[in-house]
């Protein structure tokens, strides 16, 4: 199997996997970064969202071969000790129910707020529409994104 060089959370990594392996499974099975979750495998639920060069990306549908020289950030690398404004807001609002979708929600929200620090409610809803929460914690997700925007501003 071919080897690939990856930069994940600022650390260079080498993995030996088949070229069609999605980033999701490289992270989970090969790099022990299991914070990124598997939900659907077909880019429909957002549970697997990571940042690739700062852009929210579905890692289940991004193969390893597409990632050369790209900077990958996962939930584990979003901040040290959970201090990113989005993580803080998630804690303040106590968003999770089962919690399984929340890493993906946080990664989507943080990439979105990096582009648009002062979003309207409609913009937040649009940005988060691609992430399913089966427990339907949508009310709190929206509130947490709003709080995070405020945290970032101040």
């Amino acid at each position, binding site marked *: *199997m071919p080897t690939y060089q990856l930069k994940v959370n600022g650390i260079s990594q080498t993995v030996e996997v*088949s070229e069609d*392996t999605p980033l999701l499974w490289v992270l989970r*099975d090969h790099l022990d970064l*299991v914070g990124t979750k598997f939900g659907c*495998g077909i880019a429909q639920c957002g549970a697997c969202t990571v940042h690739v060069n700062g852009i929210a990306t579905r890692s289940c549908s991004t193969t390893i071969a597409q990632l050369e020289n790209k900077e990958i950030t996962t939930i584990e690398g979003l901040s040290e000790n959970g201090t990113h404004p989005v993580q803080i807001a998630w804690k303040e609002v106590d968003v999770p129910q*089962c919690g399984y979708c929340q*890493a993906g929600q946080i990664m989507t929200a943080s990439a979105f707020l990096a582009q648009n620090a002062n979003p309207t409610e409609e913009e937040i809803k649009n940005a988060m529409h691609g992430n399913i929460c089966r427990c*339907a914690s949508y009310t*709190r997700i929206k509130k947490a994104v709003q709080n995070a925007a405020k945290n970032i501003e101040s």
Partner: protein
Amino acid sequence: MSTTKKDNSLVFSRRGFMKTTSLASGGMLIGFNLFQSCKPKAEPSIDLASLNYNDFNAFIEIADNGAVTLYSPNPEIGQGVKTAMPMLIAEELDVAWKNVYVKQGDLDTENYTRQIAGGSQSIRSSWEPLRQTGATARQMLINAAAAKWGVDASECTTSEGVITNSKGETLGYGDVVKDAAVMEIPEEVTLKEIKDFKIIGTDASNVDIDKIITGKPLYGLDYKAEGMVYAAVLRPPAFGQKLESFDATEAKAIPGVIDVVKIGESANALLNSEKRNWTVVLGSSEKVVVIAESSWIAMKGKKAIKANWVAETTLESTEFQDEKLNGLLDGNNFTTLREDGNVNKAFASADEILERTYESPFLPHNCMEPMNFFANVTADKIHLVGPVQTPEFAAQAVAAMLERDVKDIHLEMTRMGGGFGRRLYGDFVFEAAEISNTIKKPVKLISSREDDMTMGVYRPAIKYRIKAAVKDGQVTGYHIKEAAINGNMYGLIPNFFPAGAIENYKVDVANYKSNITTGAWRAPYTNFLAYAEQSFFDELAEVMNVDQVQLRLDLLENVKGTTDERIQYSPERLQQCIRMAAEKSGWGISKDGVYQGFVAYYCHNSHVAEVAEAVIEDGLPVIKKVTCVVDCGIVVNPLGAMNQIEGGVIDGVGHAMFGSFDFKNGAPTTKNFDRYRLIRMKEAPVVETHLIQNEFAPTGLGEPTLPPAGGAVANALKAATGKRIYKQPFMQDPSFWKTPEKEILG
């Protein structure tokens, strides 16, 4: 077991399910069995000497420095019990919640048996026993301090982990913990009065929040063990099919595929044996399993298997099931679950009769974390790890299947990425165990979303036909018939409202046995029954020309003072919810372009009223808001409770609007989220929640707000469009089509 004193505090004299000991490190450890203490009427073993610490699965540890750690072993599926249950202990122990550390059994914990079942009854049934546990520990600490001071224990008070005597001297819990550990367990303890609660009723964050937001391993799918391989299972694509032959040549050629094996024999043998004295889904068919070095390769290998399947029984389609259910409703083959008076007489003398039929499809659970389990079967031990809601049962079944002693099994539960009923069924545990037993390796069974959605234990398709008689402005007769797949409503459901409110009342059920596996789905039966009945009441109110809210209030008036013990809902409490929901939502006060739908419902021991609001946007109805009033007694953790309530309402709205699941030739026609539609951010209504404040013991919250939501939506849609929808999902109704030919969504 308990007596109520005049001052309303509770005195307990039941001991024996606890044991204390001093720790080598200097603190005190109090062991108790959470599983036993959660069965309200179970008589625990009284013989203390016969108990050792292996009999306990939950512990309070008080360290020398006064720090309190509560070890909570209860399974957490997202309903918040891991936070709420320790709150009950901490309240009576009288420590500050911020100083309490709740420790979860971590994923790699060895030698720690915690075979605990969860469910929506957790808080209700642990309300008194857990408080009693905390109160007992507190009393022992007081007794130790009193002995030290040479004063009477009754002179001492506590606050936030500090004991004070009448002279004003103080001792911290940590100062007396060593002495307390060897004190006798008190015969009687007094529980706090509700007005004195400091923790119960305050907001506490999810105890796993830090791990969740930083992506720490928590869930079954995150578990790893030395030498572990991955297994993807190829099951028959359709219900009713079985494996005839398969060719694994291509799969085996994929680098990283370790082996391809067949399983199903052990499960089959168990299924057909006498040992099978439980009801369960074992998946009787033989399956092909790809064993690989990674998840991706296992899934890829599975796709490369060439298998031939043959039909063994009928390959059912949705049309076929529809016909069966309609046949049952039209037929005469019912079992009567409740009968009051004589409905036929009521119909014969009625001024008006209303009869309607309501239909719902199968539904998959779609837990966000697909089914998975770890198993390592070796000659001396069986290690099982993962998300399952019925670990005791799973362990027993695995032992029976592999002909092993259940004592060989060590089962650990992980946090669960949703349950909704699906993880009550241990099919994936048995599969994982059989695979490990076959390949003699530690293995993680994984499922793709397609596997998860097609190997379901679905909410069965159901139809209700309801008929009511009206005479002289009163509802005089009510007859509900249920036609369902594989099972029928059970327990006290036939005695829910409007049972007891209408003189002539009858509940009839019939079912068709299908080869499609079905089971519990969040709020079984009521999740659809509430919509059917509450839509029917709406229409009944129209026929009777009375206000929807008034009709419900009037019917409930008839139930007051009932002596029927099967009636467990309280007409007064439900009326209170109804009045508050009407007031808070501005019911009957017309708002331009806003159309309201009302429901009131009782299930899972809680009373709920909801008002949904629809508006028309771009010519189509949209649900914008739901006002929800809940009476679930004392609310232990309002922050967690609100999350459950909002989630339940939005989940209920989502499945009523979009949940569609059909079969063709025995196979589900939707297999992933591209075709299966779950509610998302933009469709989620605003939920305005009001909790009724009272001093009743707490009741369930994980489920009760879901069933009414579908009814509230249906009634609001009727108000908005003038059209009643008799079939879920609503999105497939022409009211949601832009043009008659084109379905825009769903």
